[in-house]
């Protein structure tokens, strides 16, 4: 079986959307990790919608104006509100080992680019022909973890 190239992250293309998360969680492509112990159930999206809003993330201790940008105490407490009246308590964790987010590379459009790469001896002809190519989209070093069970909260607190 041929070897499958795994390309390093290329220059990120900003998505054009302002990243609403605290800067610590920012990555060049905006990708972040969020882990929940459990599953989120939500109604099937309407045909036209590209996404379903299921809740919101709140960083209650995050206040750069008061504590400065470098403050890390906010990481200890993050809320994930799901639906009208459930809340999960979690935290922002620095990963012991960074995670690479990998995807299959689209199309063969980058083929011409490959020729410019100087290859080590013996590597020149071993590229898989028209084979699958993978790329690392992003390297992520933090994640939001919600490991507790959801707790009920008053419905009135939801802004809608």
């Amino acid at each position: 079986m041929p070897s499958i190239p795994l390309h390093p992250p290329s220059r990120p293309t900003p998505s054009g959307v302002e990243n609403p998360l605290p800067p610590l969680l920012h990555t060049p492509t905006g990708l972040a990790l969020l882990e929940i112990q459990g599953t989120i159930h939500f109604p099937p999206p309407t045909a036209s919608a590209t996404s379903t809003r299921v809740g919101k993330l709140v960083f209650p201790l995050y206040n750069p104006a008061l504590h400065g940008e470098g403050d890390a105490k906010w990481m200890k407490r993050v809320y994930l509100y799901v639906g009208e009246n459930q809340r999960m308590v979690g935290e922002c964790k620095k990963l012991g080992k960074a995670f690479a987010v990998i995807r299959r590379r689209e199309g063969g459009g980058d083929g011409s680019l490959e020729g410019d790469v100087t290859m080590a001896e013996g590597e020149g002809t071993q590229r898989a022909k028209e084979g699958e190519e993978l790329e690392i989209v992003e390297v992520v070093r933090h994640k939001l973890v919600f490991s507790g069970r959801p707790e009920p909260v008053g419905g009135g607190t939801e802004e809608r």
Partner: protein
Amino acid sequence: MATQQFDGGVPFAVASSAQKLQLLELPADVAALLDAPNPPRLSIKSSAAANDRPAYAVLCTPTQTFHLRQVQTSNSLFVTQPRHLDAHGNDMPLPATCAIASCPATLELHPSDASAVALLHEVLPVYDVVAGDVDARGNGTSKDHIFENLPLSDVQCQHGWNELMAFELDEHTYRPSVNALAQVWKSINAAALAEGVQLDSQFLTEDIATAVADDGHPASFTKAVLRHLSNDEQDASGPWSCLDRARTVAFVGKTLLEAKQGSSDFLIADFTDTWEDRLPEGWRKDAKLTAIEGSYEFPTDTTIRAKSKDAAVANVQDAAAATKPSARKWHEKFAKTRKK
């Protein structure tokens, strides 16, 4: 807490169509590699499934190899991305965090301890020379193809390749037998003498290879041997060679001893005489048993043979035996110096 207002909240949404993303846990050194200004391309290779082993995938950096292991998680692990939520009516679109992929499993990397020497030993056919005739069955496979199917990084493959003094010939690849090595060395030594070449100073590899070719040894084979014996300062890809004297003396002695394996006992005096004869004139005094310390034994008071463990390692049949620390001390020694 009740006073906490939620206007600082970030809307959280789940995308309708999930992307296919995989998460790969990066050991610190691999992460550092990717952080470097010009990160190298990594590759995922797999070993062909053999009858007793299933195929497995490895991730290779230019110099290292890791086993890929899939780890399932019962938690929901989302990859999120900032996105504008679909605006309803005349609301302003809100920047939100949107889960674009869910990863039920992640990949872990574990350093692989597979030995390129052992794996190459297994896949490459032997190139033997018996009574002046070549005995070799080609495999019709190029070196590149062999490397591509070896679950190791390019540097490790190349290192194993050099270690075995493997070579390409007419679209086939071979590893030489001890016998063939003994023969080609004899020709190299004779050629050096005839051409007036000092083997431990710089000389044109091509000159020797051409002269040795007259004895029927392919140039690629000769070059593989010269590359293996060259000192580490020598650029292996250049046209010049310069042999490492101590390494060469040990190589000649051991090759001689191993080539005799299986035949009648070798008298110590005969061995050292032949050894000296096989070396360039100025090196004769180097042919002392201390040069090959640890790789010989004395079955009787007057005879010598290659240490039996040595022979076992030389004929690696199963990969398990190969992963044991090699009894061939000089392999280890050179492996260490090369890694620097």
